[in-house]
């Protein structure tokens, strides 16, 4: 159990059976009055946000969250299939769960999946992934001075800006947090 004085940004608590993360937090106390904790909470399932004021006597359950190491296997009609590295159990995630991460999902990629009880909430990728360039215009050598970037497509279908020397068939490293090109991989 948490008490109100434990409240801080990013704390994850459970209210009425749903997990919430504290996205903003303010301690307030009217002169000689009781301490109040004004929080902006985000529902970790629906994403909706709301403000709520707690008192020092309030307490909260810890959100029953668990991060599991899983491996991406394949995509089929029922979604994205992942396997639990410990139990070998398989689950399917929907487009909503996966979100932008779909741009970087390669077979056998190790990821972390956050569960609330049995329910998957979201997916955390490694900070960078290596992907093969499947389509790139050839390097026009004259462009090297301008440093202009060009657009290429990688094996997941993701389209990214890269320096002009990157060629089709090469492997490049992409930052999964920003979606930006980092370097070529030999």
């Amino acid at each position: 159990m948490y008490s109100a004085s434990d409240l801080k940004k990013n704390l994850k608590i459970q209210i009425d059976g749903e997990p919430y993360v504290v996205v903003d937090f303010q301690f307030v106390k009217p002169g000689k009055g009781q301490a109040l904790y004004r929080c902006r909470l985000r529902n970790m399932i629906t994403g909706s946000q709301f403000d709520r004021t707690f008192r020092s006597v309030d307490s909260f359950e810890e959100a029953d969250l668990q991060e599991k190491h899983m491996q991406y296997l394949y995509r089929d009609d029922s979604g994205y299939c992942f396997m639990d590295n410990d139990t070998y159990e398989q689950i399917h995630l929907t487009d909503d769960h996966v979100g932008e991460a779909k741009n970087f999902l390669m077979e056998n990629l190790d990821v972390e999946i956050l569960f609330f009880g049995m329910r998957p909430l979201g997916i955390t990728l490694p900070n960078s992934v290596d992907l093969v360039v499947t389509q790139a215009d050839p390097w026009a050598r004259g462009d090297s001075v301008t440093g202009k970037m060009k657009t290429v497509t990688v094996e997941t279908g993701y389209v990214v800006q890269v320096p002009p020397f990157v060629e089709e068939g090469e492997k490049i490293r992409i930052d999964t947090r920003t979606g930006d090109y980092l370097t070529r991989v030999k």
Partner: protein
Amino acid sequence: MKRLLAAGFDKIFQISKCFRSGECGRLHVPEFTLLEWYRTGADYVSLMDECEEMVTFTAEALGLGRKLDYRGVSVDFARPWERIAVSDAFLRYAGISAEEAILNDRFDELMVTAIEPHLGCGKPSFLFDYPVALGSLARRKADDPTLAERFELYIGGLELANAFSELTDVGEQKERFASEREHRRTRGMAAYPEPEKFLEALASMPEAAGIAFGIDRFVMLFTGSASIDEVVAFTPEEL
């Protein structure tokens, strides 16, 4: 300080560090600075006048003149300042009476969310006449014993000072402490010991008024600081 009043000092002040464990926020640090002053023969209305004089004097001495902009809120120090009773503030800004707010245990919450944001905007505001339960060291109002002669000063939404006409009736002070102790007990909070020496001195203390004025927030006001962390030497995290 009240023991000094009882010992015969009639105009006293101190600037000292105060400590409130665990209070950290935009307007709170566990170690802060208060200016307190007491005057015998005075009441809370005379302290309102003294606040007006001290704040305008400070603003002029700083070369700021009569007007100030605190984080987008403009404040005009020209007197008279707003004086609004707690009961009126609840009806005007919270839409319910202060009594009802206390019954529903929402007084503090509504004060912070609905009322304080409006106070001290345009002109500084004195919020005065609190329900007696919220002024345990303050004298009852002669014409309405349900109210205590207490005020808070707000400028630009900042709560700066808390003042009372001091309660000097030892019997009543003991009763108020007892009911406060009971209130804390039912909420599972630690009890304060009976302040025996204070109660002893109170018997010989003359009528007086006293005020506690937050120096750190006063500096915030004049420097346009968003957070009290910006005006103290060390934040709680740095101590």
